[in-house]
């Protein structure tokens, strides 16, 4: 008898407890933790590195820096075109010596005036080897980089010799080579100005960064949440149309999506792949699926003789033609990817160098020709294709298996291609870095700035930072050098496209698809859009 009483008591406790929780659900939500006003909440991931502009190379940290910093240039959230922002003018005669004039009236959110020195000091800090900044290589075009950031040994200088402050509003930049696109790269966050406090009290700054963007960080609990308040004194034309944003760290994108459905979260900018089939029914029109500057490819290890012999390009082209891209993007990715027909991205636009169809027949699904080409080229090296990928994130397993299926069907051989999973992303990068790949591997490229140069040079130029397969081609290198030296943008783009054709003729990497950014939002929000970097344009969002 007694036992029953216990059970009843326990059940009662659970019921009461649930009632308490459900009451709790009533307050504080949507309002972004009780900060009041038109504040929206948005999903976030814990940034991997400290939030310094020259040290942030992933999208979660970049999201914050995009809200609290504005640079010399800003990329239009719709067209991706670089517009002068803090820069009044950036002029050059020879594509090597640039004079930068900055606008008057800009300050940091702590009131400090932004001068030429704010930029020069920041860039020197970012380039200096001593500061371990992971984006240091962005300053590699500036004269004197090899002194402050030598490949080995200690640095021989503290500042870049190519940067000179002329007066409060003017500084000059000297590059170590001609690069006509240089001004357009300056919208990248690594080139943001930094206030004095960054240098004088660095620890405090990293705890709560201070910048010059439309938002200022009001509170930051590492690993949990950040509250960014609209900065009322923001002098720019793109001030925030809401009162603030609360970024909440989620352990899993599925949980964030669940919270959005339950009305506890306003914006999710990473719809989990498993939910893509429900998203239409769940959110209706509150789902965004728009192109982002990301392309997925399959890269090859050119340090392996089997992949670098004459004739191997036929095998690679054959493999490209054996992949039914359309079917995979439609069924697995539910149209959040678009089959690639060149090596850039649609966000560049035709003027920027995007040229659909540049790949030609080599990217068309044609199993019969694919089989013949592979046979003509001497067959798959080693008789079997093992595509290496990291299994810890994304839905890589699904599409790699689908790609292999497609290749196997084309070749009429069930065992021609298999996936080769690696446990973690770090280990995957590790193997690539040590040149241990024996077969093709997954490669993805998210642009740093919307220029065709950024889709070609870092990936295929001899010895470039992200040329993981160590591909090297003299014709390509010469064309890229020429394109960089061209002063007229249209000619420069045309020469880059010629270089891209060299990539095509050798099939240096198989282009798979252009990736879209996806997001979902609650009915409290309007004017939600993603920029070409697949980051929500927070300052334009209206609440209520």
């Amino acid at each position, binding site marked *: 008898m*007694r036992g029953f009483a*216990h*059970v009843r008591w*326990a059940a009662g*406790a*659970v019921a009461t407890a*649930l009632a*308490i*929780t*459900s009451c*709790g*659900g009533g307050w504080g*939500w949507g309002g972004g*933790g009780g900060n009041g006003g038109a504040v929206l909440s948005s999903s976030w991931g814990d940034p*991997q*590195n*400290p939030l310094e502009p020259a040290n942030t*190379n992933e999208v979660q940290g970049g999201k914050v820096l995009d809200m609290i910093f504005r640079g010399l240039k800003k990329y239009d959230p719709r067209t991706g075109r670089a517009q002068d922002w803090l820069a009044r003018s950036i002029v050059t005669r020879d594509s090597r010596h640039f004079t930068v004039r900055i606008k008057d009236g800009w300050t940091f959110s702590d009131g400090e005036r932004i001068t030429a020195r704010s930029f020069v000091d920041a860039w020197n800090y970012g380039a200096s*080897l001593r500061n*371990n*900044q*992971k984006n*240091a*290589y962005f300053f590699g075009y500036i004269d004197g980089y090899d002194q402050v*950031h*030598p*490949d*080995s040994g200690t640095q021989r200088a503290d500042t870049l010799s190519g940067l000179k402050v002329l007066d409060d509003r003017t500084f000059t930049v000297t590059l170590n080579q001609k690069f006509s696109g240089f001004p357009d790269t300056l919208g990248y966050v690594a080139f943001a100005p930094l206030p004095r406090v960054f240098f004088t009290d660095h620890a405090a700054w990293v705890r709560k960064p201070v910048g010059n963007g439309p938002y200022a960080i009001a509170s930051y609990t*590492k*690993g*949990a*949440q950040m509250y960014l308040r609209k900065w009322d004194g923001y002098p720019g034309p793109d001030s925030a149309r809401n009162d603030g944003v609360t970024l*909440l760290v*989620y*352990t*899993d994108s*599925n*949980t964030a999506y669940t*919270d959005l*459905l*339950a009305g*506890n979260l306003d914006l999710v900018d990473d719809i989990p792949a498993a939910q893509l089939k429900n998203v239409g029914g769940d959110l209706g029109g509150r789902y965004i699926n728009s192109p982002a500057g990301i392309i997925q490819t399959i890269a090859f290890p050119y340090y392996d003789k089997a992949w670098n012999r004459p004739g191997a390009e036929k095998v690679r082209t054959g493999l490209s033609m054996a992949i039914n891209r359309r079917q995979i993007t439609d069924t697995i990715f539910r149209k959040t990817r678009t089959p690639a027909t060149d090596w850039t991205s649609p966000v560049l636009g035709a003027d920027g160098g995007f040229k659909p169809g540049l790949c030609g027949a080599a990217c068309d699904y044609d199993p019969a020709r694919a089989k013949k080409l592979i046979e003509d080229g001497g067959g798959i090296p080693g008789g079997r294709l093992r595509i290496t990928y990291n299994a810890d*994130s994304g839905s890589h397993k699904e599409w790699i298996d689908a790609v292999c299926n497609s290749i196997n069907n084309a070749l009429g051989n069930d065992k021609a291609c298999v996936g080769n999973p690696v*446990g*973690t*992303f*770090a*280990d*995957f*990068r*590790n*193997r*690539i*870095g040590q040149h241990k790949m024996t077969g093709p591997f997954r490669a*993805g*490229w998210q642009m740093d700035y919307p220029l065709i140069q950024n889709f070609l040079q*870092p990936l295929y130029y001899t010895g470039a*930072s*992200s040329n*993981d397969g160590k591909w090297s081609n003299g014709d390509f290198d010469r064309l890229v050098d020429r394109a960089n030296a061209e002063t007229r943008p249209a000619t420069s783009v045309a020469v880059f496209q010629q270089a891209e054709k060299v990539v095509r003729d050798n099939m240096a990497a198989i282009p798979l698809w252009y990736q879209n950014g996806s997001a979902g939002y609650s009915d409290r929000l309007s004017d939600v859009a993603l920029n070409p970097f697949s980051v929500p344009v927070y300052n334009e969002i209206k609440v209520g």
Partner: protein
Amino acid sequence: MGRYVLRRLLQMIPVFVGATMLIFLMVNVMGDPVAGLCGEQSCDPATAAQLKREFGLDKPLWQQYVTYMGNVFTGDFGTAFNGQPVTELMATAFPVTIRLTIVAVFFEIVIGITLGVVTGLRRGRPVDSGVLLATLVVISVPTFVTGLLLQLLLGIRWHWIRPSVRYGTFDELIVPGLVLASVSLAYVTRLTRTSIAENKRSDYVRTAIAKGLPRHRVVTRHLLRNSLIPVVTFIGTDIGALMGGAIVTERIFNIHGVGYQLYQGILRQNTQTVVGFVTVLVLVFLVANLLVDLLYAVLDPRIRYA
């Protein structure tokens, strides 16, 4: 008693050293952690070398381990890659996980033991069969299914709870705690039931009833106390398992606890975070086991430690 405790504490030292060394080796076997820091590209060699020097990764492994252990004894668990000291991560993660564990153990004790006693006393009756069947279902369904299902029903369909945890307070952790406890709870029920059913027929219970003691006194004082030894052992070891093994539950309900930090540490190959957290978990496990052994003596006066 004091000597027994001292001996047990001394025995912990080799276990502690061995466990931390194994973890240290395992994390290192996974490869170079710096490689994953620069996104989809290789860090430039100069920065990579500098980072390795800073994290002490350029030294031989044994030296890294010795330095690490030396630092641990002074309370310095190193720094995570995002520049946060690991002790700071622990200070935010452990309180949440401890609260979650308390909720889970509470459910295990209250619901598990109560159901166990009820079914043990009514062996073969419909209540018994019903609860047995229910525990069978709970044990055979994986935690993530229970978790996602409750989240969907209570959180989205019926709006009883928030589907995710934001601050990690007790009231938010009730449903996650129940999910985390569910499987263990079923085991506790079954263990208690068997133990009670067995002891119900023993001599001392018959004596107690013959003495004319009221039924509730027989059950709580005599029967339950003696039947709890296997259950206490199970719950004690389960504390360690609950704290370290909440990765799935913490991910589903967005709890920023130990499981989340471990998961992220492993993904980012952050030796300092993983070894630090596991070291503390090893300590928790050892202490919990010691406490369980000491509790035996309290429950059963016949057990003495020398």
